[in-house]
């Protein structure tokens, strides 16, 4: 059962089309990440679901009811604002109770529910504090408790972690996911951070320039991005542009990049004038590690190491191929010496790790 449905929703501001023909649905209890760079229309989409903007065309349905001309307070939507938007003149308790009061819960119900919510976000004992007396992470949890208190049909999170510093962000990401699944909230998260989108979302909807370019489970999108934009936006990638050569088997064909540089890649299921191949840095192995699995179906490249950066768990090696292409390789650090990554380095990767997309013209 879908809680929220968007049916070819378009939003125009004067001449500018912010969202174009967006269609997707959110299932009950699911967390959906709306991912895209800033200005891609994801926030406008969120605001249309919350009722702050009216679609120019198309329909927004919440719990199978068309929300056309329904004001925000006529919908049951919980919204966590990017900067939390806590009421500065009210205490934590009053903030969380506000929605309950406005939705006419009686006093004892309000007290119970507020206690329950503050318990959920681990802020009991903070009832009388003002928002300004709380840390950023605590403020966020109050805002979350406030948004969840009225049992909304759908919870919308607008860049929930972007206001926090990197270390706190990781902690809160896990906590956020726990809280959301504890209440079984159907959630839409708007974010430009792919890690946030992938770790929180059961499903991703990737947007670019007002359009939805791909949707599906995070792993699926990471493994099979349909366009160069998606592949580049989600994860790191090395790119090679070239011409598709003859097939060598049922599902493999050659891919000519440059003089002396040809790869084996999966046969694409679509036609394009030119193709580009993306190889994730972590799928490339330095040395001959991959060759044990049958030499015929392995791609080998070699290049000169230009830079080695040891980033803790990962080692990033930048090398230049004979053709002039630059490749980044990501190796796991398992105690090896950095000395092996110098001079001429040979690398291997499987054809199945090559993602073929149509090249942008």
């Amino acid at each position, binding site marked *: 059962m879908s809680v929220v449905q968007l049916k070819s929703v378009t939003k125009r501001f004067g001449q500018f089309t912010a969202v174009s023909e967006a269609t997707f649905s959110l299932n009950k209890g699911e967390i959906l990440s709306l991912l895209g760079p800033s200005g891609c229309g994801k926030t406008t989409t969120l605001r249309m679901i919350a009722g702050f903007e009216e679609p120019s065309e198309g329909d927004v349905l919440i719990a199978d009811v068309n929300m056309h001309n329904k004001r*925000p307070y006529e919908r049951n939507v919980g*919204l966590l*604002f990017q900067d939390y*938007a806590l*009421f500065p*003149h009210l205490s934590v308790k009053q903030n969380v109770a506000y929605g309950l009061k406005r939705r006419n819960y009686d006093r004892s119900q309000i007290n119970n529910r507020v206690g329950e919510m503050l318990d959920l976000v681990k802020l009991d004992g903070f009832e009388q504090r003002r928002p*300004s007396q709380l840390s950023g992470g605590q403020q966020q949890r109050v805002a979350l408790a*406030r948004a969840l208190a009225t049992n909304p049909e759908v919870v919308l999170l607008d860049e929930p972690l972007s206001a926090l510093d990197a270390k706190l962000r990781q902690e809160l990401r896990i906590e956020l996911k726990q809280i959301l699944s504890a209440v079984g909230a159907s959630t839409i998260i708007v974010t430009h951070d792919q890690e946030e989108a992938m770790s929180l979302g059961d499903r991703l909807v990737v947007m670019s320039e007002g359009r939805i370019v791909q949707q599906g489970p995070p792993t699926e999108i990471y493994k099979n991005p349909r366009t160069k934009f998606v592949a580049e936006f989600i994860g790191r990638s090395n790119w090679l542009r070239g011409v598709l050569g003859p097939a060598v088997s049922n599902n493999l064909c050659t891919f000519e990049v440059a003089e002396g540089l040809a790869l084996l890649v999966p046969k694409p299921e679509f036609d394009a004038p030119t193709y580009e191949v993306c190889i994730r840095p972590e799928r490339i192995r330095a040395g001959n590690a991959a060759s044990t699995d049958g030499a015929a179906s392995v791609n080998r490249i070699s290049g000169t190491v230009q830079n080695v950066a040891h980033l803790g768990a990962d080692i990033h090696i930048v090398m230049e191929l004979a053709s002039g292409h630059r490749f980044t390789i990501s190796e796991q650090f398992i105690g090896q010496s950095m000395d092996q990554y110098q001079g001429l380095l040979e690398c291997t990767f499987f054809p199945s790790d090559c993602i073929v997309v149509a090249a942008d013209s």
Partner: protein
Amino acid sequence: MLQRYIDHFGAWAVVGTILLTVTFLIAPIIVSILMSFDARSYLGRFPPTEFSFHWYARFFSDSYYLTGLKTSLIIAVIAASVSTCAGVCAAIVLDRYDFPGKQALETIFLSPLVIPAVVIGFSLLLFFALIGVFQGYPRLLAGHIIITFPYAVRTTLAGLTGIRKNLTEAAMTLGANERQAFWDVTFPLARTGMVAGAVFAFAFSMDDVAVSLFLTSPQTYTLPVAMVSMMRTNFDLTIAAASVILMLFTIGLIIILDVIVGLERVIGGGVYRS
């Protein structure tokens, strides 16, 4: 090395300027306060040799001053109330709605701040003569509302613009309609700005001479106007006592406000920022 001397000199210059400014601000007031307690019955040299309350006694037995004080208080209370209400409405419209001519309207609302008070007084005098109003109260009230209105608009507007729009949106997603969101969120947050506006309006009304001079009638005059005319005809230290009393009203008001809403919030921007 030289740079450090220059820096040192700069720091001392700043401190010196501040001290000088404070001295110039405070010293004359202290002189007039001390002189108002002078026991001598004539206008003697500073400092007074003995202290007494006899200038105050004279002030409170002089019906001319008392009439002025009473008029000042009545006018200030009414003018501050009216201009605060009107100013709050104007500020809300300016803050929340976009319409053609908004900029022009804001400029008109704030124009009494830049138009010389003498010009306002004189124009009002001509205007009231034209429409046949010669009584003191309506003329003074109109003048005082005009000069205090911009302060109410300004401080309320400052309070309102500090309130992020998403607070209203948050209230709306939580079930409040536009009217409820205004009373639950916008109004309480802008209240300090409104109160500050009312205080300024009251203080400026109590204090005004330039506009009032044109609009008084023989029976209706404000305390500052009474002080000016006494200074011309009958200069003695009752005026110093009157100044102190005038000051006491403003100081008293500020103290009351400090107790009720907290002075820092009223003067210090009057805006919540979390």
